[in-house]
């Protein structure tokens, strides 16, 4: 095995300073639930490993007036069990309950999950549907990108080699809004075959805003924009939801693999879009 320098960063400044120094020769180690597997199989062998797991400043769940701010080192289990999230953003707690196993959720972090950018990841679709933003920090400054624009290709993101993902900003649900995440996998802990997140806000019966995001069916999580357009501004009926399912099936082209044929996945897209819309439009929070 080749020599690797191990640096344990104690603060955000130490992380960004080291990233500035080593750039793409370094990999960031957070919860280790994806990277350690790759290191062990020697599929990835960085020169420098920057362990950020002890940086306490990046582990928090903070509520502001309209936004929930989550530190990138917050674990999946913290999100799953947080009382505020359970009440006000139940989509996130529900999604976490379905993400891998409790052992992985205890160690895996939100930031690590997003930066690994597995197209079948469960965290990204709900964040994209909710309109979340990601705050990236480097030695020279900070910038914010929409979660939707963060993912570029299989395991590739918009993050630059000198940047670290620091915070996730999730808008709180509007009073008449609701969001759900549903997924399908062979067994609970297996790779997600399809995961659909739906966000709907309504004026009485009419859909004011809708965002649909499908994971596991492409190189990145995909917004089903034609399906959204079929519902936006209309009364949410069974017929409209069926129409949206059809649109999503047409606009997304999954690839056949061991988990199922392209045709089977298209069928899943149509069915899961409808199920997610049905659940999201059923009021959920505060009887909207």
């Amino acid at each position: 095995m080749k020599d690797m320098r191990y640096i344990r960063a104690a603060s955000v400044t130490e992380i960004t300073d080291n990233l500035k120094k080593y750039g793409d020769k370094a990999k960031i180690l957070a919860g280790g639930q994806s990277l350690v597997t790759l290191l062990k199989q020697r599929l990835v062998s960085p020169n420098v490993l920057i362990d950020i797991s002890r940086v306490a400043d990046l582990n928090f769940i903070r509520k502001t007036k309209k936004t929930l701010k989550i530190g990138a080192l917050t674990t999946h289990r913290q999100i799953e069990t947080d009382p505020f999230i359970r009440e006000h953003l139940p989509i996130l707690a529900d999604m976490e309950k379905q993400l891998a196993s409790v052992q992985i959720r205890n160690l895996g972090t939100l930031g690590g999950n997003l930066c690994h950018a597995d197209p079948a990841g469960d965290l990204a679709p709900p964040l994209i549907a909710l309109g979340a933003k990601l705050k990236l920090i480097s030695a020279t400054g900070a910038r914010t990108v929409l979660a939707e624009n963060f993912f570029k290709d299989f395991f590739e993101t918009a993050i630059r080699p000198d940047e670290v993902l620091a915070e996730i900003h999730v808008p709180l649900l509007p009073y008449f809004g609701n969001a759900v995440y549903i997924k399908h996998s062979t067994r609970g802990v297996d790779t997600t075959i399809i995961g659909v997140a739906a966000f709907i806000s309504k004026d009485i019966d009419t859909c004011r805003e809708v965002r649909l995001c499908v994971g596991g069916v492409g190189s990145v999580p995909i917004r089903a924009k034609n399906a959204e357009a079929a519902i936006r501004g209309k009364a949410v009926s069974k017929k409209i939801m069926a129409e949206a399912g059809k649109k999503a099936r047409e606009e997304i082209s999954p690839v056949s693999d061991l988990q199922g044929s392209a045709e089977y996945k298209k069928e899943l897209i149509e069915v899961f879009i409808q199920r997610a819309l049905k659940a999201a439009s059923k009021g959920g929070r505060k009887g909207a």
Partner: protein
Amino acid sequence: MIIESSITLDGPVKEVWEKLLDPACLKNCIPGCESISVRSNGEFEGTVKVKIGPIKARFDVVLTIVEKQPPVRLVSKALGRDRFQTGRFTQENQLILEELHPNRTRLTYTSEITISGKIATFGERVFRAKAKEMEENFLASLSDILKHGGRKP
């Protein structure tokens, strides 16, 4: 995994056939191809670099022509080994050329790819999609080269 597709190219059958066996043209068309040459026994050998997120693989590829019926049918076999022992792939290809018009040729392509080793355990689903993407890029580049009179634009 089987990849099948078909594309209509600008150019006579004979020209398309020649391009498909021309190492310089292949080098320009295969995504990530670093070098390609023809051995004395007619086999092609080359290096192809594939990058998926943090994982980089460099395959030494040997392609053998199994059957040749110029200028309509070409059957070949490829074996790729990664230099860092992360995995290997085998590929069986069949190319069929059909004259639609003296200056239009239809290329029908079937390729069966098997990926094995560590690289396959990591992400069989990813490599399938990646292989499909590479094949699409290959055909797009080939089509460009034929359109621009044999030179890459």
